[in-house]
């Protein structure tokens, strides 16, 4: 109960086309994340699903029913906003119950559902308060509670964690993951944070300039990016891109290799390079090199390593961990791909 089909959705504001034909299938119970840089159309797509924006053309089906002309409240969706969007004049309890009250649900049933949702989110002590008397994390939990109470077919999240500080973000992320497991509901989630995307999603949809670049599970996107954009967008630090000829592979225009798939040695290796900068993160050490053969290179080493700027080192790519792209930026399928060897 809660599938979604999008068919060639287009949306233009004035003469500017923001969505350029989006086709997508979301199965019941899936956690799908739209991710992409600012202005790629991911929020507009979410609003189109919610009915807050009308698509210029194309069809939106929820559970097989065409909802193009159905009001947002009748689509069986609930949405959580980045700015929480709680009603400032209502208490937490009334905030959570308003949707049901509007739908004409009896008082007792509303109280019951609000109490249940408040229990799931440990919001019971705050039910009588107004939003102004809550902290940011509590407000976002109320906003999530307001969505749960409606028992929607689809949960829509619009960058829900962006206004929270780092520690709360991790906690709320875990909470959302736990909710998804316990409610088994279909969730669609928009973010520009790839960590949220990788940790929460069953399926990631990478968008760029109004088009879907790739759809797949987090590990599919990491191991088999379909094109240069996805390869560069997923993974942090960003994948190294090397011209095919300089890499010694004339069959590919560009060869990509992730920073974690390069080994570093002081004695010997394929590429000689000078250390430009070192970042010590504790668990990782990130080394920026300037190499003679393949240009600038980012290397991610696990654990602590002592390297100094201006030191001469040797870098060696892990065999089988490279990604090859043609002149249009599309990935070239090869037998090696997806079979990544452990770090040497």
């Amino acid at each position: 109960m809660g599938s979604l089909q999008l068919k060639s959705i287009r949306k233009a504001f004035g003469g500017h086309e923001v969505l350029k034909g989006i086709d997508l299938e979301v199965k019941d119970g899936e956690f799908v994340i739209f991710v992409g840089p600012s202005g790629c159309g991911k929020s507009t797509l979410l609003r189109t699903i919610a009915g807050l924006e009308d698509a210029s053309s194309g069809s939106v089906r929820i559970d097989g029913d065409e909802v193009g002309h159905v009001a947002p409240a009748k689509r069986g969706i609930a949405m959580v906003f980045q700015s929480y969007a709680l009603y400032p004049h209502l208490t937490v309890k009334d905030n959570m119950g308003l949707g049901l009250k509007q739908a004409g649900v009896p008082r007792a049933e509303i109280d019951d559902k609000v109490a249940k949702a408040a229990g799931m989110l440990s919001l019971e002590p705050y039910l009588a308060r107004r939003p102004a008397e809550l902290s940011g994390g509590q407000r976002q939990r109320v906003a999530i509670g307001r969505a749960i109470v409606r028992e929607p077919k689809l949960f829509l999240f619009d960058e829900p964690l962006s206004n929270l500080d780092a520690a709360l973000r991790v906690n709320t992320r875990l909470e959302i993951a736990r909710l998804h497991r316990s409610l088994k509901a279909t969730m669609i989630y928009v973010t520009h944070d790839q960590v949220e995307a990788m940790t929460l999603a069953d399926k990631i949809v990478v968008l760029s300039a109004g088009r879907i670049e790739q759809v797949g599970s987090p590990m599919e996107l990491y191991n088999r990016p379909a094109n240069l954009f996805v390869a560069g967008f997923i993974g942090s630090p960003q994948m190294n891109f090397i011209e095919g000829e300089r890499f010694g592979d004339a069959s590919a225009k560009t060869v990509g290799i992730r920073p974690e798939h390069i080994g570093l040695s002081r004695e010997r290796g394929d590429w000689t390079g000078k250390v430009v900068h070192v970042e010590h993160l504790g668990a990782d050490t990130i080394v920026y090199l300037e190499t003679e053969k393949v240009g600038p290179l980012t290397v991610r080493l696990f654990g602590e390593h002592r390297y100094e700027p201006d030191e001469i080192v040797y870098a060696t790519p892990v065999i089988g961990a490279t990604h090859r792209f043609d002149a249009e930026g599309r990935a070239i399928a090869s037998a090696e791909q997806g079979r990544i060897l452990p770090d040497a």
Partner: protein
Amino acid sequence: MSKARSSLARTGAVHVALIAYTLVALFPVFLTIANSFKSRNAIFREPLAVPTPETFSLIGYETVLKQGDFIGYFQNSVVVTVVSIALVLLFGAMAAFALSEYRFRGNTLMGLYLALGIMIPIRLGTVAILQGMVATNLVNTLTALILVYTAQGLPLAVFILSEFMRTVSDDLKNAGRIDGLSEYAIFFQLVLPLIRPAMATVAVFTMIPIWNDLWFPLILAPAESTKTITLGSQIFIGQFVTNWNAVLSALSLAIFPVLVLYVIFSRQLIRGITAGAVK
């Protein structure tokens, strides 16, 4: 330490300036009220003196309350002002909501058209307005005044309120839509409470010219039963003799309703600012 002293000096200077301004602004009010309690001779002999037991006199107030239906004038003024403000706020806020919330063809042009009234004084159209009122049999009714004052107040109201409407979070309105609130409910329950400070500002700006207006009551509703207080006070100002006691008493009485309305709106203003915000 020098920093603290200089900021003290600056605060002092600001306070001196504000106190000076307050004195200048309050002086005519003080003069009006003080002289309204004095006998006619005392007003002319020492206009700046406060009433003493010898000069104290209520003759002005007695004249005002005896001559003409002063309570009636008062009621007329209050009815016209309150109803006009209510209509200006309601229609102004609705127009502002439509202009700031919905994308439609001609949105900007419509906004400019509605703001045009700020630049063109409504009195230029007096003759046409009078003809219209005669044709619709509205001369000598309070309705005529209310219609004119509503039209007069709308441009500024639309202009100020639409700027404020744009600052109300889109997410909040969208949350309302998803929860099944109608556009009217979103307007009245979510948006209006958040722009209450702006509404209070508009109410004050609209109220004062309406209360003080002499022009339209004189032209559109000069009948005894529809006279406003400003027009009613004019009977004491003659071409050759002016009954200053009565004029000053009438003006003193006319100050109080405005004061009361102002206090109500300014309290709303403060409450609006301190109410819980979105984030």
